[in-house]
């Protein structure tokens, strides 16, 4: 909520500009400027400053030349006034025969226009007014504010020491703020009322609104310490970590897919997200938090959390095509170069707010970071790639042992229950490598070309030889094949003993994907006839045409002890209704026992119940494409079961045993659920050979220059050693060294940067407004002393972020009201509120809106941690397709932090509400206000359904009395009762339009969307 009008006066007095006044050496007035044809100060000085001054100024006279004044140029004969053609300077700066000119040595050549300007200036007499003195642009490591050690600022040093009080530290914050306000004759605003404060704290610390009960009890609490206690309570709640992890993940540009055009899944990434949440909740010391994220796997290899923390390094996008798919080595080098840039940039901007990436193609234009230093930093990261890795071999082994143990036990129980109940064998489970009783793996498949087991998805198969029988190693499966009847003439083998079938029509002879325990790759639907065959209690044998599979009945008989059997299943066409059709067939010992031609989706499910004689040896299921191409021909056998033909009656003893077994089974299932997915995470995977890193000319991966570089940190921080290893230092040790450099006690940046971010997260704007750029391209601190004091406090409190929260939140500055009167004196001086004469009202971020809406409707699912929820349909394809669905079931009503974040296909709802693109490192959220946002909040399906749940909740919690409904709705949405006017107009609306309408409006209102 910024005002745009900011007076020039405020610009000047704020002092933010002052540190850059290195140009103030002269004063020239406008008349002088107008008089000259070519004005030195206006036209020429900027060119020298841009290209030359850095190496040629009073303090750095390389080549014995300073361009601070005209003295050296003239003395050394570089310039012959009035004669550019004869002036040696021109020779130095002009390109010759297409080669780079001698000067400037660093950076790019001067553009033509600038060379022409210098030539004209010399020809005009090379007039350089005496009062014009050029100096090297700051910042240098000696002068730039952010590279200096933290100022030690004691309360006693302040001109007006704060009165002693229990929250003296917070009062110190106020002191810094008041001092600068007082300079403008301004004062702080009044303390906000308790209702406002509790809402502000809840949104700030949890990203959720308070319940009306919480508001009531806080407002009425007589305890003078109630506010401080509330802060403690909120910081101790797990919602705090969920809220603050989102801030950190913005900086890490975290997502659950790779990004780029293929945008594949990154299913193990979530462990890092959970690590961040946990770290905030545990109040992990911030220096340790950074160390773990940069090199936890090296520093504490046996600490599971420290290892997972390194997911930070790999959280950004990764180009599958550029790294893997392309055949061009040049493209792969380019992709890798950009990859390293992304990693180095993320680490340095998030931790120390140094924009080192600006030195990729040339020395940093503004900050004292050379191009070489940039590549030395890259040498820290060059030894690893992004990839899935196990948390530790021991953890994986233990996991597998546990899992096997539990699964084996459960399989045995299933088998026994199956035996006792005469339940029958599930053919889909057998296809998935199972025993027919549930031990198979969902979606595992058998390759129709080779009978090999395949776990990944395939599309159209290559190298298919129709009518070739491949024998399966599975106990219950005899073999598989791709049928092509060749107009009835072909003999198609259907068993390992040489049985064959004929009379099958011509097919394309093509095949798609595998025969699967579940849907085939890219299957149009898993539902048919109202049944979702992937749901609990159902199974599906996916048999995309053209394919056939033969089961070994003898083996099944000897395991089951059944003689005569029955085959029970429902076959159907699971592809889309696009006109094509397919056929399904069943054979027993090569005798056709079932045939259904021209199956389409609209045909629905065909119920099959076939008797299989005790003498039968082979059962064959087959699908063919109907001669109209095999596209979409996704034939599936639903719930395919082989059973004993004998009806089965259970004895009391059997029944008792089954009951016990089921209890045991439920226990085992819970244990398996608790075990979760294998201990893998997406993190740094060491390269086998450490590749040498060289400086890349203009950032071009094809133009390496000079010797291999050793890992080093930027020299801008003069108090720190730059060396991070030698060329022999192993990959991990380089990172460990960088982690130590970043968090070194005398590195002033790590503490300053996080203190500033914390301030930004509480006030909407940092003391340095560019919170990821503390260099000269960024802003300078509005309250430098306060910033350093906060940073020192953080270190003094052993890097406890929660302590820093308390200091800020307890300050009167934070607790000010955000409201004001139109005649407030500050409006004419500091409309932007840089001086903090009030708190900034802020619009809720996209995720906070979503979570708060769920909270109001009563639907928020508090499940914490684990794999992200997927509010999209996933379709595997060359480029996977993610189609968003309306989140309308409990699994999708979790907090947004647990969203499975698709990098390239954003959630439209959130993106419209300014959720940033995870391709970017986001230091600060932008807020925009657009009609499309209004349409989204007003009409989006999710919002409407939630408005409806909200109204149900209000209705259920109120008596039939409309007035009470209005009161409840307002209390839930705003944490307060409606005013008399509000109640009146709300009741009018309700009477005419109903409660839903009121709830829909409240969810769209400014008071709900903004925190005061």
């Amino acid at each position, binding site marked *: 909520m910024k005002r745009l009008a900011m007076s020039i006066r405020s610009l000047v007095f704020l002092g933010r*500009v002052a540190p850059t006044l290195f140009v103030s050496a002269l004063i020239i007035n406008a008349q002088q400027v107008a008089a000259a044809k070519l004005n030195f100060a206006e036209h020429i000085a900027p060119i020298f400053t841009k290209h030359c001054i850095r190496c040629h100024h009073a303090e750095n006279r390389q080549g014995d030349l300073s361009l601070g004044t005209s003295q050296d140029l003239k003395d050394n004969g570089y310039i012959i006034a009035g004669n550019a053609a004869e002036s040696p300077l021109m020779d130095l700066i002009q390109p010759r025969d297409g080669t780079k000119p001698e000067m400037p040595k660093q950076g790019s050549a001067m553009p033509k226009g600038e060379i022409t300007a210098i030539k004209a200036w010399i020809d005009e007499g090379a007039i350089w007014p005496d009062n014009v003195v050029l100096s090297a642009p700051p910042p240098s490591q000696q002068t730039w504010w952010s590279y200096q050690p933290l100022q030690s600022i004691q309360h006693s040093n302040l001109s007006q020491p704060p009165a002693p009080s229990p929250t003296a530290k917070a009062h110190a914050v106020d002191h810094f703020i008041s001092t600068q306000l007082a300079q403008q004759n301004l004062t702080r605003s009044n303390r906000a009322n308790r209702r406002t404060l509790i809402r502000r704290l809840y949104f700030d610390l949890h990203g959720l609104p308070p319940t009306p009960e919480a508001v009531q009890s806080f407002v009425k609490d007589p305890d003078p310490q109630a506010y401080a206690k509330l802060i403690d309570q909120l910081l101790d709640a797990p919602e705090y970590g969920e809220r603050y992890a989102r801030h950190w993940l913005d900086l890490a540009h975290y997502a659950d897919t790779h990004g780029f055009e293929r945008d594949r899944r990154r299913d193990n990434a979530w462990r890092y997200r959970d690590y961040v949440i946990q770290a905030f909740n545990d109040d992990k010391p911030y220096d340790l938090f950074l160390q773990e994220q940069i090199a936890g796997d090296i520093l504490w290899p046996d600490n599971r959390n420290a290892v997972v923390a390194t997911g930070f390094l790999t959280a950004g996008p990764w180009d599958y095509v550029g790294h893997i798919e392309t055949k061009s080595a040049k493209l792969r080098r380019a992709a890798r170069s950009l990859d390293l840039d992304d990693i180095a940039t993320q680490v340095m901007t998030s931790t120390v707010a140094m924009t080192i990436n600006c030195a990729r193609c040339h020395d940093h234009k503004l900050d004292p970071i050379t191009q070489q230093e940039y590549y030395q930093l890259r040498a820290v990261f060059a030894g690893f790639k992004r990839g899935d890795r196990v948390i530790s071999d021991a953890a994986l082994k233990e996991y597998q042992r546990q899992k096997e143990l539990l699964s084996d036990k459960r399989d045995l129980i299933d088998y026994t229950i199956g035996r006792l109940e005469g339940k029958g064998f599930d053919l889909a489970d057998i296809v998935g490598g199972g025993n027919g009783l549930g031990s198979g793996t969902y979606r595992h498949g058998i390759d129709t070309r080779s009978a090999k087991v395949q776990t990944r998805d395939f599309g159209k198969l290559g190298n298919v030889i129709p009518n070739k029988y491949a024998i399966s190693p599975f106990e219950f499966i005899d073999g598989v094949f791709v049928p092509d009847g060749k107009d009835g003439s072909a003999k198609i083998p259907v068993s390992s003993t040489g049985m064959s079938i004929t009379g099958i029509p011509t097919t394309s002879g093509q095949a798609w994907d595998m025969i699967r325990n579940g849907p085939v790759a890219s299957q149009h639907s898993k539902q048919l006839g109202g049944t979702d065959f992937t749901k609990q209690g159902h199974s599906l044998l996916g048999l995309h045409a053209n394919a056939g599979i033969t089961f070994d009945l003898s083996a099944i008989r000897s395991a089951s002890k059944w003689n005569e059997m029955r085959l029970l299943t429902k076959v159907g066409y699971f592809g889309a209704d696009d006109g094509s059709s397919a056929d399904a067939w069943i054979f027993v010992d090569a005798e056709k026992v079932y045939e259904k031609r021209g199956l389409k989706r609209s045909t629905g499910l065909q119920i099959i119940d076939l008797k299989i004689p005790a003498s039968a040896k082979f059962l064959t299921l087959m699908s063919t494409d109907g001669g109209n191409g095999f596209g979409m021909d996704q034939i599936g056998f639903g719930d395919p079961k082989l059973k004993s033909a004998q009806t089965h009656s259970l004895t009391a003893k059997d029944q008792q045993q089954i009951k016990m077994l089921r209890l045991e089974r439920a226990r085992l299932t819970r244990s398996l659920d608790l075990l979760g997915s294998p201990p893998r995470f997406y993190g740094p995977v060491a390269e086998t050979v450490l590749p040498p890193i060289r400086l890349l000319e203009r950032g071009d991966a094809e133009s390496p220059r000079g010797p291999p570089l050793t890992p080093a940190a930027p020299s801008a921080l003069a108090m720190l050693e730059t060396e991070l290893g030698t060329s022999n230092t192993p990959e991990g040790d380089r990172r460990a060294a960088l982690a130590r450099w970043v968090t070194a006690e005398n590195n002033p940046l790590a503490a300053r940067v996080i203190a500033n971010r914390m301030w930004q997260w509480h006030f909407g704007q940092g003391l340095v407004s560019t919170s990821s750029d503390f260099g000269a391209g960024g802003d300078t601190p509005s309250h430098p002393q306060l910033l350093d004091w906060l940073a020192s406090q953080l270190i003094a409190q052993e890097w406890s972020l929660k302590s820093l929260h308390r200091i800020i939140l307890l300050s009167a500055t934070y607790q000010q009201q955000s409201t004001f009167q139109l005649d407030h004196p500050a409006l004419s001086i500091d409309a932007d509120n840089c001086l903090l004469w009030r708190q900034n009202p802020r619009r809720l971020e996209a995720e906070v809106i979503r979570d708060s809406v769920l909270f109001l409707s009563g639907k928020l699912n508090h499940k914490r941690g684990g794999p992200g929820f997927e509010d999209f349909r996933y379709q595997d394809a060359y480029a996977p397709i993610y189609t968003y669905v309306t989140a309308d079931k409990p699994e999708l009503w979790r907090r947004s932090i647990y969203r499975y974040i698709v990098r390239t296909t954003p959630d439209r709802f959130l993106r419209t509400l300014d959720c940033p*693109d995870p391709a970017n490192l986001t230091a600060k959220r932008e807020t925009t206000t657009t009609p499309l946002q209004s349409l989204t909040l007003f009409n989006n399906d999710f919002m409407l359904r939630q408005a409806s749940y909200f109204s149900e909740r209000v209705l259920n919690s109120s008596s039939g009395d409309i007035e009470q409904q209005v009161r409840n709705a307002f209390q839930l949405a705003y944490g307060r009762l409606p005013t008399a006017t509000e109640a009146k107009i709300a009741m009018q*609306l309700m009477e005419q339009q109903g409660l839903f*309408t009121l709830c829909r409006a409240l969810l769209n209102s400014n008071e709900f969307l903004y925190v005061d």
Partner: protein
Amino acid sequence: MPNLLNRRNFLADTATGLSGIALASLLQDQQLLATPTEPLRPEIDASKPFAAREPHHPAVAKRVLVIFCSGACSQLDTFDYKPELVKQHGKPLPGAEDLLTFQGKQGMLTKSPWAFKPRGQSGKMISDLVPQIGELADDICFLHSLTGKTNTHGPGENFMSTGYTLDGFPSMGAWTTWALGTENENLPSYVAISDPRGTPQSSVNNWGPGFLPAAYQGTEFNATKPLNNLSIPEGVTASTDKATRTFLHRLNQQHLEKFPGDTELAARISSYELAARMQLSVPEVTDLSTESKSTLREYGADDTSNPVKAKFANNCILARRLLEKGVRFVQLFNGAYQTGGEGVSNWDGHKSLAEQYSKHGPVLDQPCAAMLRDLKRRGLLKDTLVVWMTEFGRMPTFQAGASGRDHNPDGFTAWMMGAGVKAPYTYGATDEFGHRAVENITTVYDFHATVLHLLGLDHKRLSYYHNGFERRLTDVHGDVIKEVLA
């Protein structure tokens, strides 16, 4: 010069070395600030983020239509005629033995399956794959010497649409609408019309906001896929909807009293009014039923034998209607990935180019040509810039063992038409086979710089500070291609 008030500009100026000028005189005489590289940012009133804004210099083009052929449409089978390729058909490309392109090794030089014929008064040679577009040759300015930085589709689309191969940078349309706002606030300022077959490879990144405020992202809809959340929800009557708005307005006004003069809160209130107007004007502009039968016929929207073409034709009519109503930036896509990569639903003809392009040519040609003629007839080309582009070009050879062409970023074609563009005109040339640009070699940066120039924007000054950089559409490159300006 209101941008003086922007603190960031100020810092950038001083830091990039505008030495010798004191702060005092700076503030006295704003003219002194003007240097060629100083960022010139739009002054955006948060309460009216889409209000039309003045360009840097007088603009020739008020709005832009980008026709994007997704999949890398071959220059050699459309607009870049190479007689030598016909002569050397079946022979090896000199130096191709060691040439590994995206999918691997090269086969023989292969002439286009389509004949080239002279078109228009100018006699520009254009293939029979796009004969109707060819007939407009006299109105077109061809650039045959574009060079790119990548030969991969996703990065290639990103590069053409955002100036960077990576994801996450603002699209050309986002830069344009950020700078200029729009002339019709009742419609989205920037519309991306996706192909009836789906979205392009880089999907929304082609019209993404990058790090610019999300307000400036393209809004995606087409003639068959309506704008999301536009209609009054099912089960809500128009009168209820209106009553809800009225109530909401009163609630918000009450709230505003506590924050007198707060522009952002006021903007949110008026955004609901704007949204209501959009609910009227968008259906109006997307309602093609008011188009005459002859128009539908001209575009091919009545072609029942080719539903994809008919749908694309409707998209072309929609594009014209949006431009007519003053939408600032329209991106019209031809070709999609998700429903069939490798040339099935797009121009990525690796393996069976003749067969696939035979399908794609007719989808593009008639509807697109009709749209261009229509724009001209209605006088819209006077201040509308039309740009045709694709991610990169293709090889003059067929791939080893296949009947299609591999990717080639070393010389490819784009064209421009309309406001401020010289026509008929051909700029630059590729070598005798159409493989590499050799004459007036130009870059995507130059191309973007030229588009911005026609819109009245200096590509070197239209910048946005992000994580240490003054970011531009043209990175740190690009020169306006003066030769193509009328």
